């Protein structure tokens, strides 16, 4: 049993995820350089201020397009069911690994689903405000004044969510990173973290 592999993510899913991650990383790091002068080293590392100003919006568009394909593929699976709502109510127990009373999860747990919706909605805000900030000379002042506030607020939500996502998937749930890199998990992993999903596919 221990040597058996359960397929968790298709190669298309993995590829899209990692391309999205790379574009996010570039847009996020270059954005943080714009956010704070303490992060300006990131702008220098990514090619200097002028390069970052030219490529940050392009990375943003790539990110938005990739996220849109992710959205098409996953949005149906990301709907919250009754168990998910109960899961969220006891998520503090999940956080400290108390398992009593935490409902079993499907292919994605409620936390992952919330991340999906957080990223989708903040991406819409980032894309809309980013388009305004990209071409200041073409945009009316009122729009620019709104965008200059909306863009950082949405990016705080987005990066905040990603910090949790990266921490969870690399350090908290051993096996999750391999699932996204190589596509498979062990049966024990599937039964432990996504029991409802494992029963469905067994």
């Amino acid at each position, binding site marked *: *049993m221990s040597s058996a592999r359960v397929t968790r993510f298709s190669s298309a899913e993995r590829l899209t995820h990692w391309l999205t991650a790379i574009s996010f990383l570039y847009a996020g790091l270059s954005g*943080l*350089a*714009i*956010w*704070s*002068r303490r992060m*300006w080293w990131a702008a220098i590392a990514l090619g200097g*201020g*002028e390069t*970052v*100003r030219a490529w940050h919006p392009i990375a943003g568009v790539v990110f938005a397009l990739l996220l849109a394909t992710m959205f098409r593929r996953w949005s149906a699976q990301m709907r919250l069911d009754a168990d998910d709502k109960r899961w969220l109510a006891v998520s503090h127990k999940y*956080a*400290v*690994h108390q398992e009593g009373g935490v409902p079993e999860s499907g292919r994605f747990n409620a936390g992952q689903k919330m991340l999906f919706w957080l990223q989708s909605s903040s991406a819409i805000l980032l894309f809309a405000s980013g388009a305004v*900030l990209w071409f*200041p*000379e073409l945009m009316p*002042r009122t729009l*620019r*004044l*709104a965008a*200059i*506030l909306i863009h*950082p*607020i949405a*990016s*705080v939500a987005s*990066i*905040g969510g990603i*910090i*949790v996502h990266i*921490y969870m998937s690399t*350090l*908290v*749930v*051993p*096996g999750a990173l391999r699932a996204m890199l190589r596509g498979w998990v*062990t*049966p*024990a*992993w599937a*039964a*432990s*973290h996504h029991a409802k999903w494992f029963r469905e596919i067994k």
Partner: protein
Amino acid sequence: MQTVAKLIDTTLCIGCKACEVACQEWNDQEFTMGVFNNTYQTMPDLAPNFWNLIKFNELEIDGAQSWLMAKYQCMHCADAGCIAACPAPGAIMRLPNGIVDFAQDHCIGCGYCITGCPFDVPRLCAKTKKVYKCSLCSDRVAVGLEPSCIKACPTSCLTFGSRDDLKFAADKRAADLRKSGFQQAGVYDGPGVGGTNVIYVLKHADRPTDYGLPKNPSIPWTVQLWKGPVKLLGNLVFVGGLLAAFVHFIRVGPKESHDE
């Protein structure tokens, strides 16, 4: 160091545009073709290579035809919106003498300064992708010369000196004008941005917008909100998120799978 300033007594402006030409010449700007629309406004607006503009405002005030001329350029604010909004280190600086100066080699061309400026002064050049504006001839001032616009002005509408002296002179001139029957005469120097180093004497100080000047200039509230509470909250989320992850990992650790 003393804060320098420029005083514009609009009541003395004759609209000769010598200051426009002097600015173009000293700053080595390319000549740009003007427009003709049956007014004196041959240059329609500030441009990346045009930093000093006389606005010719023709309007009726109290039944009388008025021709309000006002020089329009960077105001060199004490609390400058361009500096507040600029993300690029070293691109905009406030010199010890109060001049707000752009350093184009550090400018990344994001245009945030344009949005941050309550006077709508900086202009983005499509070709160089850098932003430009009046430098109050910081190069001339540094060696004890007055800005070129001031040097060219034939009517003493423009004067240059220490801000305190010019504020005093402006207040006195406004009081004189009020005594001469111009009830609404006053001084415009942008208290909402900590005071501007370009000071106006206006015959109709109660209606600055008729001169093309904003009524109560201040750094836009969205920029202030971003640079204040949003940035604080965001830093808390970023640093707090990393810290929380670290503490969680040390105290709670990974969620292992059950062996079957």
